[in-house]
C-alpha cells in the first residue's frame, strides 16, 4: 500500500519536472525577454535614444523616445533607477508632443510619468512643469496653476536639500 503511494508520488513529481523542462525549452515569442538584455546594453540604448531626440524634429523624437520606453528593462535594474529613467523619457515624450502640437498626448505622457510614483526628485518636478504647459495649451489654466505649484514645491525642497548640503561644511 505504502509502496504504491510512493510510486504514484514519484511518477507525479517526474511528470511535473518534465513539464517544467518542456516549458523552459519551448520557443518563445519574438519579443526580447528582459532576462536576455544586459543592463549596460539597455543603458546604451537609452543614451542613443536621448542623443537622437536632441536633434530630431518633435515627431521623430517622440517616436524614438517611445521606442526606448518600450524596451524591456533588465531585472537587475533597481526599481528606483527604472522609475527615474522612465519618468525622464516620459518628460521628454511629453515635451516632444507639446512641440508637435499634440497637447492631449503631452498631458497623457506627463500623467503616465507621475503615476510611476517617487519622492522629491527633479524628474517629478519636470513632469509637473510639462503637465502645466500642456494644460495651458488646452486652456485649463486653473489646473495648470496647480501643476506649476507642485513643481515649485518640489523645486524648493530640492534647492533646500542642495543648499543645505553645500552649506553643511561652511561655518
Amino acid at each position: 500500500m505504502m509502496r504504491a503511494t510512493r510510486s504514484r508520488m514519484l511518477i507525479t513529481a517526474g511528470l511535473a519536472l518534465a513539464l517544467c523542462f518542456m516549458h523552459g525549452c519551448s520557443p518563445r515569442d519574438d519579443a526580447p525577454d528582459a532576462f536576455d538584455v544586459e543592463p549596460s546594453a539597455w543603458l546604451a540604448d537609452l543614451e542613443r535614444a536621448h542623443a537622437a531626440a536632441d536633434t530630431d524634429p518633435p515627431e521623430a523624437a517622440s517616436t524614438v523616445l517611445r521606442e526606448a520606453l518600450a524596451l524591456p528593462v533588465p531585472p537587475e535594474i533597481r526599481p528606483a533607477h527604472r522609475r527615474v529613467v522612465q519618468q525622464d523619457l516620459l518628460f521628454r515624450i511629453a515635451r516632444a508632443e507639446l512641440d508637435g502640437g499634440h497637447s492631449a498626448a503631452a498631458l497623457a505622457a506627463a500623467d503616465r510619468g507621475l503615476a510611476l510614483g517617487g519622492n522629491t526628485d527633479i524628474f517629478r518636478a519636470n513632469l509637473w512643469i510639462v503637465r502645466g504647459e500642456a494644460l495651458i495649451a488646452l486652456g485649463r489654466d486653473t489646473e495648470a496653476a496647480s501643476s506649476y505649484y507642485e513643481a515649485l514645491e518640489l523645486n524648493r525642497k530640492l534647492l533646500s536639500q542642495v543648499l543645505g548640503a553645500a552649506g553643511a561644511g561652511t561655518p
Partner: protein
Amino acid sequence: MIEDDADEQEQAEAEALARALESADASSTPDDALETASLLRAVAQPGELSQARADAVLAALGPAVARYVKPQRARVAVWIAAGGMAAAAAAALYLSVPRASEPRQHDAVAASDLPVPAPALLAAQSALSSSDAQRDLVLSRRATFEREMRAYRERMLSKLKRSYPTMVGMLEPRQAR
C-alpha cells in the same frame, strides 16, 4: 421440559452469578461465576475498548509490537513535514523569481544614489515654472534648462553604467537587485 425444582448447588451458583454481575467484588465469588459475568458484560457492550485498556494491552504485549506501531506514526509525520517544507520552498521560489512584466509602480524608495542636481539646474527649472513670461524669454529659459538637464542626464546615465557594469562572460553571475 424445564425442571422447576433446582437443587441447592444450582441455586448457590445462580446467586453467586447474580452477585458477580452486580459488583466487581471477586473475593467471595467463584471463578466460573466471574467468567460468566465477564462474558455477559462483554455481550452487553460489544466492541468497546477503553483507551486505558488499549494502552495497557499494548504495554503488556511489549516493545516488540510497539516497534510496528510507532514507526507508522513517525512515517506519517515525516511525510507531513516533507510536504510542508516542499510547499514553503515552492512559495519562496515563487516570491524570489523576478517578474519582468510586473509594473513596479509607486516605489517609495528615493533614488538617493543618483547625482545631486546642480543649483544652476534647479534655478533654470524654477524659472521654467512661471508661465507669465514673454515668448522670447520663455525660449531662452527653456534653452538654459535643457542644456542643464542634458548635462545632468549624462551624469546620471554614466553613474548608472558604473552601477551596472558589463558582464565579462556567460558564466558570470548576474547582479542581484
